């Protein structure tokens, strides 16, 4: 059993209303010095067996079709 992490973020040119709303709020909560926040998703995918090329290929396919929306998001895989 191994764990593959998939990080999904909005493409940089796509508006992130959530991140912006958080960033706007920080100074009111007394937090200074933050110039931007972007919010994305993190998935921990447990694969049966080792995180070999085949398993990574499968997770990549899952990320492409289900976890990320390729029109507006990018993703990265990482083995943990």
């Amino acid at each position, binding site marked *: 059993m191994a764990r593959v992490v998939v990080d999904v973020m909005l493409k940089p040119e796509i508006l992130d*209303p*959530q991140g912006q*709303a*958080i960033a706007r*709020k920080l100074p*009111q*909560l007394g937090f200074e010095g933050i110039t931007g926040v972007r*919010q994305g998703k993190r998935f921990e995918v447990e694969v049966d067996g080792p995180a070999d090329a085949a398993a990574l290929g499968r997770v990549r396919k899952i990320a492409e079709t289900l976890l990320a929306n390729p029109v507006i998001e990018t993703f990265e895989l990482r083995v943990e």
Partner: protein
Amino acid sequence: MSPARVGVITFPGSLDDRDAARAVRIAGAEPVPLWHADHDLQGVDAVVLPGGFSYGDYLRAGAIARFAPLMAELVPAAHAGLPVLGICNGFQVLCESHLLPGALLPNAGLHFVCRDQRLRIDNVATAWTSEYAKGQEVVVPIKNMDGCFTADAATLAELESSGRVVARYLDVNPNGSLGDIAGITNEAGNVVGLMPHPEHAVESLTGPTTDGLGFFTSIVKRLVNA
């Protein structure tokens, strides 16, 4: 005798604040609009945190609203016994503020769900449920994206053993909530959080039933007798 005054807080993104005020009025109390950015509870006798998407439900439902200046007034007042009802987003804010235990996660079906939901009222000893009979079944709309009540096992066991589950879903669990929990109360019974929307079941013209009115008449009766 002047009617009881029940505050309804509006946060940026609150949606059911007018509806909650109407329900308060129909129950015979005076609704008092409260603004999240004020520091003044205006001496109200009870408070409703209405449904909606405060701050767009961005980050986590209720997570940003919890920091509103008015919440800094509300939390100690609630600890001191002020009756507080959080509906849907209001429930989420109460959990984020730690006035109620647990948290509300996205619905298990990953869809927004709007339906007329059958519920059982399991605790009629709270400030907001005294007008119901124990075990009474009611139909009230539910409509939310993040309604899956979750808590760790110890908290859950504690809620169950102390009878602090106020209402449970019947027939269908619309959001994957643990123990079919639709609403809970704090130990003192003055703070109640509910996922379903009783304020949308107070008139036969616009609601599926008038079963929700009891939450509002309960508090009115209590305030009048107090």
